[in-house]
């Protein structure tokens, strides 16, 4: 029985006259690896940003483990601009607009399309800092080292995370000195440090060659099993998507145009037209 982890209902994101995400509805269930694909500018990262609280969607509802974490409906100027069929459905609902740190605390972690590692910090510190959120301490106890046991625990967990990623040997190097592929791995390790249940990966394989991409796919499956995660990823590398995802959603111009298993999506003419290219 599929247990739902993430659900988007009629999510719309409008910036002035531009509708970046248009009535997007989708579901991700426990233990799945679901991919979100589509041409550049289709609205994929915008959808991610709505989930993680960077944007407040113009309309719609997002729930995590059946609990509403984002809910919005058009007000003021937006009401005039957005006249979608589903706009009225959420008017009665109360608004929920979390900040990104609140979303992360709930158990949703993400990586970024353009790697956002902390440039002045080492590899080790990049991961260690992500553990700050869940540490049982306050500024006084931390400064006076009263809760030093927490610090020790965080450091041990960081070592474990880096070891598992084969990044431990770079621990004391500056994060930005790593080669590109390893930086992406590091970002994933950092996201894992926040103890998430749902992992949002934004183009994790960008810039990788086929062999690295293959390794990444196997790695994602590995950590999914090990940490009991659910993975929702944006990707352009079709080999990664087709080989490793359980289901795929395809969007174009902000709208969902197809969904299903890899086999179904690959054969869908709409998808081929918009994105994969006409065969032969």
């Amino acid at each position: 029985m599929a247990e739902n982890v993430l659900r988007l209902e009629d999510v719309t994101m409008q910036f002035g006259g531009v509708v970046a995400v248009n009535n997007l509805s989708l579901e991700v269930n426990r233990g799945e690896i679901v991919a979100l694909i589509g041409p550049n500018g289709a609205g994929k990262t915008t959808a991610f940003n709505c989930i993680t609280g960077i944007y407040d969607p113009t309309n719609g509802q997002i729930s995590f483990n059946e609990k509403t974490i984002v809910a919005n409906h058009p007000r003021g100027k937006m009401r005039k601009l957005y006249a979608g069929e589903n706009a009225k459905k959420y008017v009665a609902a109360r608004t929920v607009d979390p900040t990104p740190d609140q979303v992360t605390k709930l158990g949703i972690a993400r990586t970024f399309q353009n790697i956002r590692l902390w440039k002045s910090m080492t590899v080790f510190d990049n991961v260690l800092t992500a553990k700050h959120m869940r540490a049982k301490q306050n500024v006084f106890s931390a400064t006076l080292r009263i809760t030093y046991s927490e610090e020790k625990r965080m450091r041990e967990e960081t070592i474990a995370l880096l070891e598992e990623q084969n990044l431990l040997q770079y621990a004391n190097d500056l994060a930005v000195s790593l080669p590109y592929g390893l930086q992406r791995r590091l970002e994933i390790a950092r996201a894992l440090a926040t103890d998430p249940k749902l992992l949002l990966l934004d183009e994790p394989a960008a810039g990788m060659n086929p062999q690295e991409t293959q390794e990444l796919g196997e790695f994602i499956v590995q950590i999914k099993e090990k940490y009991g995660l659910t993975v929702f990823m944006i990707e352009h590398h079709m080999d990664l998507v087709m080989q490793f995802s359980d289901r795929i959603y395809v969007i174009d111009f902000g709208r969902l145009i197809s969904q299903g298993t890899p086999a179904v999506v690959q054969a869908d003419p709409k998808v081929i037209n918009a994105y994969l290219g006409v065969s032969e």
Partner: protein
Amino acid sequence: MKKKSKAELWLAFGAIALIYIAVAILEKTVNANSIIFTVLKKGAIYSLVVVSMNLLNGFTGLFSLGQAGFMLIGAYTYAIFTMPTEIKLTESVYKYYEAAVKFDTGIFIGLICAGLMAALFAALIGLPVLRLKSDYLAIATIGFAEIIRAIFQWDVLGPITNGANVMREYLDLTDVTIPFTKIPFPPTLFVFVASGVCIALIVLLINSSYGRAFKAIRDDEVAAEAMGINLFKHKEMSFVISSFFAGISGALLAMYQYTVQAAQFKSAMTYEILLIVVIGGIGSISGSCIASFLYIAASEWWLRGLDMGKFLGIESATVFRSGFRRFVFSIIIMLIVLFFSRGLMGDREISFAGLIKRFNKHAKPAKAAKGGGIDG
């Protein structure tokens, strides 16, 4: 992984202890009027406020220019609290007003209250101001510092602040005694101890989990937020803590000067502190301390001749007259800002390993960060 080896830590403690012992010895042996004590005292006070500013600007990335305002709050809170009640009730200080605050406290409580009052103001000011973008934050904090200065000079608040008049007769460095006794405590050593404890606390903070959170906010706040760090809460924390210590440094300044007046805490003072932060290296505590002492030594001592007609053996009363010192100083600062913008220490701290490497000619050059040889 990243922690210094135990040996390094012990060496560091040892070196710091030596410095304190040296100061104590100096106080016993050298004439109390020597310029060296001015430099040491003022240098220690400035070290504290420069480090507090570095915490906020250098480590958390918040371009705030309100430090002088918080020093002012600290200085006045200290002066008002420690002025003996008998003096408050007479007309010697509060000439034109009837003093409203009718109690007094000791030095230690005075200092703590100075910090707390500054922290309180910071907490309130931070609420609207910390949501602003960096340039606007700078302007808003300058604005608040000026408003605070105007408020402290307002004659309606005269019964508390003595309006635009000078505050005097409060407990100063000559009143410091060994706790619970009446034995006088060497003033320079006291300033060093007070500053030192505060700076030590800041160092502990920066090396803690919260310090890392601050640096994450500085480097990339979008990523910091995505990793669960509440931006507003941590920015407010940095702001309040920085202002707490700025308040204490203001109080120490009041103790050192024996009189305080709101008019001296202009924005120019904040700029001076910022420049010292830059000279020492944004993001380096030891840099801030070293730069503070160098700055004070240069401006109060070494470059004095530039104002007095004679410098480095050259005599010229027409060139070396009043104001030349500051003029030369500003040129030096411009040169540093333009050509040495990383400052003395960049964003690193002074370390024995680093010093040894410098002096050891046969040492291999520091290993460059790995990255080249991996095929990915």
